[in-house]
């Protein structure tokens, strides 16, 4: 165990702590780097855009993931394995390939423009690519499988007798879902939401390919500060902000999960 612990400590923990230290060490004084970051309206806009997009993507993943996971959990065994494999396969395909797919769909000669032209809704190809909508689509595409898998694990373990009992006592299917299934699925929803939100909040590849130059998010800003502007203090500051948001989300949602269901460790 010691070697693995040492590897993580030396290669992961210490470099990240050093990055954090770098933001406080600046000659200008403690915390100046953070004041500088929040002082710029552009940066505040990017932080807001990143948060907003991650929240929208999480909501979409819940809306798409919940019925799908519910469907998988209620399928017969053989079909269930097949459906899970079909959800895992996109996850094993690289982020570059999966973002690129949306370039093909949203591009000027892409599927969506073709459909819109054919239907007569538009007269000439419109710019769908390099927009916030494109980023949202790409990220929702990237992370919906994670939500499905988080939910399937939980939904599979729900005792079907509980639903049957609710039904036999006169609850409508909708009421059964809302009052029995959904509360029991909360732990899976929380885990899935944490994965999707933090993944979207820190994503780099998809915003670069589908957002273009104008729609900067935190990850692309970090890269630009570090590798184009060579302002490592600014880049470190963004890195620390990302870490703080991620840790805060993980801890808050973990606390929420424990509060709502004491059985969850």
């Amino acid at each position: 165990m010691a070697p693995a612990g040492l590897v993580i400590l030396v290669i992961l923990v210490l470099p990240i702590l050093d990055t954090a230290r770098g933001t406080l060490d600046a000659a200008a004084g403690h915390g100046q780097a953070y004041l500088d970051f929040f002082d710029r309206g552009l940066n505040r806009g990017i932080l807001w855009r990143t948060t907003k997009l991650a929240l929208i993507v999480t909501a979409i993943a819940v809306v798409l993931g919940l019925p799908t996971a519910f469907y998988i959990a209620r399928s017969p065994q053989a079909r269930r394995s097949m459906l899970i494999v079909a959800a895992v396969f996109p996850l094993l395909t690289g982020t570059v390939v999966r973002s690129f797919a949306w370039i093909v769909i949203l591009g000027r000669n892409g599927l969506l423009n073709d459909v819109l032209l054919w239907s007569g809704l538009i007269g000439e190809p419109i710019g769908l690519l390099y927009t916030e909508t494109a980023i949202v689509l790409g990220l929702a595409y990237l992370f919906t499988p994670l939500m499905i898998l988080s939910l399937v694990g939980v939904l599979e373990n729900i005792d079907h007798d509980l639903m049957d009992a609710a039904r036999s006592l006169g609850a409508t299917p909708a009421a059964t879902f809302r009052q029995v299934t959904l509360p029991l699925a909360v732990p899976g929803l929380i885990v899935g939401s944490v994965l999707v939100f933090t993944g979207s909040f820190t994503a780099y590849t998809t915003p670069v390919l589908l957002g273009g130059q104008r729609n900067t998010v935190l990850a692309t800003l970090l890269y630009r500060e570090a590798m184009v502007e060579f302002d490592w203090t600014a880049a470190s500051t963004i890195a620390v902000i990302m870490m703080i948001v991620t840790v805060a989300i993980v801890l808050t949602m973990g606390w929420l999960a424990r509060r709502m269901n004491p059985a969850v460790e």
Partner: protein
Amino acid sequence: MVTRRRSPWLSLAAFAVYLFLLGPLVIVAASAVSDTEYLAFPPEGFSLRWFERIFEVSAFLDTFWISLQIAVAGTVLALAVGIPAAFALKRHGVALPSWMGTFFVLPILVPEIVFGFSLLRSVSVSLDLPIIPTLLIGHTVIVLPYCVRVVSASLANFDFSAQEAAISLGCPPVRSFFAVVLPNIRAGILAAFILAFITSLNNVPVSLFLIGPGVSTLPIQMLIYVENFFDPTIAALSVLLMVLTVVVMAVVEKTLGLGYFVR
């Protein structure tokens, strides 16, 4: 008993989501054979020239080779430190503080782009380590949690008294690990290997900061190409990578299955 039937609306919703998940990959595959200089779907004409084009771009071949080496070496290293860690966690799990389990999944919790940048600052620049070793240790760390988790899961079904029996019959503890424990978790190790290998092969955010002149990885090279060219080459390359993913999964599954039959 109340019959459990799925409403047609639920089936329709699930079908729509699967169309959303798999449709784009089919579209990529179809656009790869388009006989046009630009990306088009539905494909216009039929041509395999974009597949030929992949092999004419030496940067793709060079970076694929680097990515392959990093993925294999990184996964092997991660398994070498991860299997003993998983073993210790399961064997002495009760006696250990609970944060220790969390410690090994830290690399999943840390945003990859933050890790990549920190690695650049601390290892690549401060220690002046060459590119390949830096990429290797970076990838080892990002795949380590998958190794520890998957191997731990397969150890959950292992009866530790089998190892104790071997030791009480005079087998040295270290040898009992290799002779008794490892063969029993072979399936888990293979599963961990595939997952870690594919994760490393696809990584962008960590490699992004560590590449340098003449040394890059395949996903980064693809990213650069997509940003500059709008032809179907990447679609063709994507098809090959998807085929590779399927083949790796199938081959290991088959080997695993055959292994069980031989035993």
